[in-house]
């Protein structure tokens, strides 16, 4: 869940009133947000680096607010305020408009070289915007939040914002050999080739995470203006030339990526959020993007979509009885402008470009329920009549583990994942003989394989409890995993029972006796006749004896 950090006083000023922390927490809860932490820059630095470093840092109160992962429209102060003000019916949701420029439209031309690395781009212009320090910070922060979330750490979409007045269109989005790309990147004083930059950024704590996206590709994506000035080398870094400042009045925004839908959503979010500060509020200047096939599109889309939902469907899904008019009002409070039409039971809902999360009627139902207030909904019990059954394997497990404890053995609970060594080398078994499933991306050796036997876990439990008085008598009834090509996924679980007796003397008769007891409980007679059980010597057991009992 993304966390948005906003200055409390700035937030209250924008909301037009103040709240106590408790009141604001309550408001967040009702709206589906979470006031995660109340802090300040000073407190954060002091916590992370000590009081000394925090000296002189700002002690302006910050609210850290958790935002649902699909609500990109709430990832900045501007969006949060707009959402809450509409929710509290203090303002109406703004109508976002795309306008054509007075002069020539800004053009971004995509060349076919991009096809293999980053085929999509969209663009727009924020005209006559007025930044302040806070607005500027919020603008940068929103890009960062989008990059981390919907943009999947820039892999799907990367955003570049530029001072349009420092550039001259049309712009070209192409892909070139890294050695052929040379420019002065953001916050550097000289030019570097793309190869040099990739090297430099390997030690950059922020940028090093994005290098892998293009690192091994023969061509790197790059955007030029008509004079050959580099705007950006997505998804890594922008050029320094077109850097936006507090004085920037016209912003050219480009989003490039591998997911066209998400690129369009990201652009819509940025321009709807920050067009608030344009001279003509909530208007966005269009830009034209020409694709390699010659087709040209105008962005941002800022598409409004109409959905029709029957009032009784909402009532039936939520479990309330509201009039269609009331439901329309509730939805309007969620930035979904709604009205009752047709037979008086139909509600027409306008989905704004900020609400890409609304993809089905169920999303509309949820918003109606939120506006109604989850905690105002009458709780009822469904009349669903059913007879309960236990899963037979678990039923047996439950019965048996109680009797294992009654037999004086203590239940261990060990991990299902372990190292290859645990199930193979340490037991003197070849890993290939174990039929173990192997994990491809373990962070440590502890998670290389799923266990094929419960024994290593019990032995490790004993090793960690050597200070306990002897004897130790342990058991575990749990699942192990082995490959099995007859199963749809090619592997299956088996439920195993394992017990270990640990003492200064071997005491084989004790574990033997336990086995006899288990067989007695399972009603299996001893002896080969009539399906009884027998114990036979085997290499594995000899080994177990050696490893298991002789340590003391």
């Amino acid at each position: 869940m993304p966390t948005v950090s906003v200055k409390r006083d700035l937030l209250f000023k924008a909301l037009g009133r103040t709240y106590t922390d408790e009141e604001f927490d309550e408001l967040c809860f009702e709206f589906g947000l979470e006031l995660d932490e109340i802090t300040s820059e000073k407190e954060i630095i002091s916590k992370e680096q000590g009081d000394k470093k925090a000296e002189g840092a700002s002690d302006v109160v910050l609210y850290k607010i958790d935002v649902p992962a699909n609500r990109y429209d709430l990832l900045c102060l501007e969006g949060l305020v707009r959402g809450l003000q509409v929710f509290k019916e203090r303002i109406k949701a703004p109508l976002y408009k795309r306008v054509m420029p007075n002069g020539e439209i800004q053009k971004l031309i995509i060349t076919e070289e991009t096809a293999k690395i980053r085929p999509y781009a969209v663009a727009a212009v924020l005209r006559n915007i007025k930044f302040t320090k806070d607005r500027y910070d919020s603008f940068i922060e929103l890009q960062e939040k989008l990059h981390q979330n919907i943009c999947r750490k820039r892999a799907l979409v990367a955003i570049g914002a530029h001072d349009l007045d420092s550039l001259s269109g049309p712009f070209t989005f192409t892909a070139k050999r890294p050695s052929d790309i040379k420019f002065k990147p953001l916050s550097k004083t000289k030019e570097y080739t793309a190869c040099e930059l990739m090297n430099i950024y390997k030690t950059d704590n922020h940028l090093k995470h994005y290098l892998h996206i293009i690192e091994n590709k023969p061509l790197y994506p790059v955007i030029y203006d008509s004079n050959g000035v580099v705007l950006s080398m997505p998804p890594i870094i922008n050029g320094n030339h077109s850097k936006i400042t507090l004085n920037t009045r016209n912003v050219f925004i480009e989003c490039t990526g591998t997911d066209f839908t998400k690129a369009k959503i990201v652009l819509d979010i940025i321009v709807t959020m920050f067009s608030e500060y344009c001279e003509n509020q909530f208007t966005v200047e269009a830009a034209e993007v020409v694709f390699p096939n010659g087709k040209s599109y105008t962005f941002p889309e800022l598409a409004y979509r109409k959905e029709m939902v029957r009032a009784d469907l909402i009532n039936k899904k939520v479990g309330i009885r509201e009039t269609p008019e009331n439901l329309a009002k509730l939805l309007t409070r969620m930035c979904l402008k709604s009205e009752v039409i047709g037979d008086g039971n139909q509600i027409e809902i306008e989905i704004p470009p900020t609400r890409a999360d609304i993809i089905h009627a169920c999303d509309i139902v949820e918003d109606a329920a939120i506006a109604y207030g989850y905690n105002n909904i009458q709780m009822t019990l469904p009349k669903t009549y059913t007879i309960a059954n236990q899963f037979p394997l678990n039923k047996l497990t439950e019965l048996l583990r109680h009797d294992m404890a009654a037999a004086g053995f203590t239940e261990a609970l060990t991990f299902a994942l372990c190292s290859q060594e645990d199930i193979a080398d340490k037991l003197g078994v070849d890993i290939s003989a174990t039929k173990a499933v192997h994990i491809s991306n373990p962070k440590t050796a502890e998670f290389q394989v799923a266990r094929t036997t419960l024994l290593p876990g019990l032995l490790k439990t004993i090793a960690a409890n050597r200070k306990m008085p002897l004897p130790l008598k342990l058991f575990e009834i749990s699942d192990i995993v082995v490959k099995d090509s007859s199963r749809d996924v090619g592997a299956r679980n088996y439920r195993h029972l394992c017990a270990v007796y640990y003492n200064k003397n071997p005491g084989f008769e004790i574990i033997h006796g336990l086995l006899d007891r288990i067989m007695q409980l399972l009603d299996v007679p001893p002896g080969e006749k009539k399906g009884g059980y027998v114990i036979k010597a085997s290499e594995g057991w000899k080994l177990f004896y050696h490893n298991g009992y002789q340590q003391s």
Partner: protein
Amino acid sequence: MADGPVADVLLRRLEAADGGLDSAELAAELGVEHQAVVGAVKSLQALGEIIEAELRSTKRWELTAEGEEIAREGSHEARVFRSVPPEGLAQSELMRLPSGKVGFSKAMSNKWIRVDKSAADGPRVFRVVDSMEDDVQRRLQLVRGGQAEKLAEKERSELRKRKLLTEVGSWRDRPFKPYNFSARGVLPDSGHLHPLLKVRTQFRQIFLEMGFTEMPTDNFIESSFWNFDALFQPQQHPARDQHDTFFLQDPAEALQLPMDYVHRVKRTHSQGGYGSQGYKYTWKLDEARKNLLRTHTTAASARALYRLARKKPFTPIKYFSIDRVFRNETLDATHLAEFHQIEGVVADHGLTLGHLMGVLREFFTKLGITQLRFKPAYNPYTEPSMEVFSYHQGLKKWVEVGNSGLFRPEMLLPMGLPENVSVIAWGLSLERPTMIKYGINNIRELVGHKVNLQMVYDSPLCRLDAEPGPPQTQEAA
């Protein structure tokens, strides 16, 4: 320490003595209670290998009043023997003698005398032997002379049984220390169940009480298809990242998928349908085939609902499961790479958010949690979604106790469930309520091989609705 001076003396004497000291003799010599010396020995022993001590018991015997009499006058049987003249004596007369009753039967069993029942004036007693040895008298005289050790153990106990001999200082004459009820007793040797699994048993019980049927969850390995795609979780979703999920190298891919259903899922993701816009991206079968360690038991719920959808006509169900799930996460005090998930699912015609809340209220009441409130939330596969919060008395704040919602139509309709059937579901971890219940702050102290077995031995019964847990000092997320 009270034993201090005695212990000092004891050590000094021990140094000087060859072959050790007798505690009783030392006590007598020092003029202290024997217990004081024993206490000094015990406290010196507790310090480690400073002294060696062994328990010796000595017994002294003395005669009872009757024993004294017999030592003086001879045993009852001897006295009977001597009373019988060579011509015999009527039994009735013999019985009137002071030693008659006891002496007669002993003398009989010693075969010193016999009875002639056919004698003219009633039974008559005759001597069998001319003389006899009165061993009883002799032995008692030995004891009186301080030579009890010359008697065999068997002989002594024979005399003791006849109440002729008594152990000096027997327990009857000793003062007893009162029982110390403030000390701990000795716990019985026993096996123990693991606390987390004790809580699991309770949760199973609660579900069964509520009429929920247990789903099979015995498949840790799952395909991405059942774990994510079937749940309408898009292929670029962060949860499908290498950073969050354990993928398999071998077997890397699922061998079989239900292809008809897969196509419906693919269409719903990439183009929409069933009233949905879809996610509008290129859905890849290869991605769905990727095997992984299931990240939630909802994968098993999806399989169960798919099986339900294929049974016609539709019958309402209540399902539950409690089993392990796996996350490739950064480990900390509250997160491990594997944990247990508890899940409840109800499918029926016309279920509402109000029904979900009603079921949750009943469920949590059984856990002893009565103050609930619900927060709007986001889950990829439920809509509407709700986080469940309960008021924690110890922390004096609302804490999240579970997650819930109605499964999305994009998940249910491709399975083939009827359109007017809603499925409500909720989930929580097993570890978190257990940590709260048993007051454990670090999950590693609860799960895995590093747990202290003493914790397992000591953990009380799990009665979720009976007692409030100890105050929790750290929030388990």
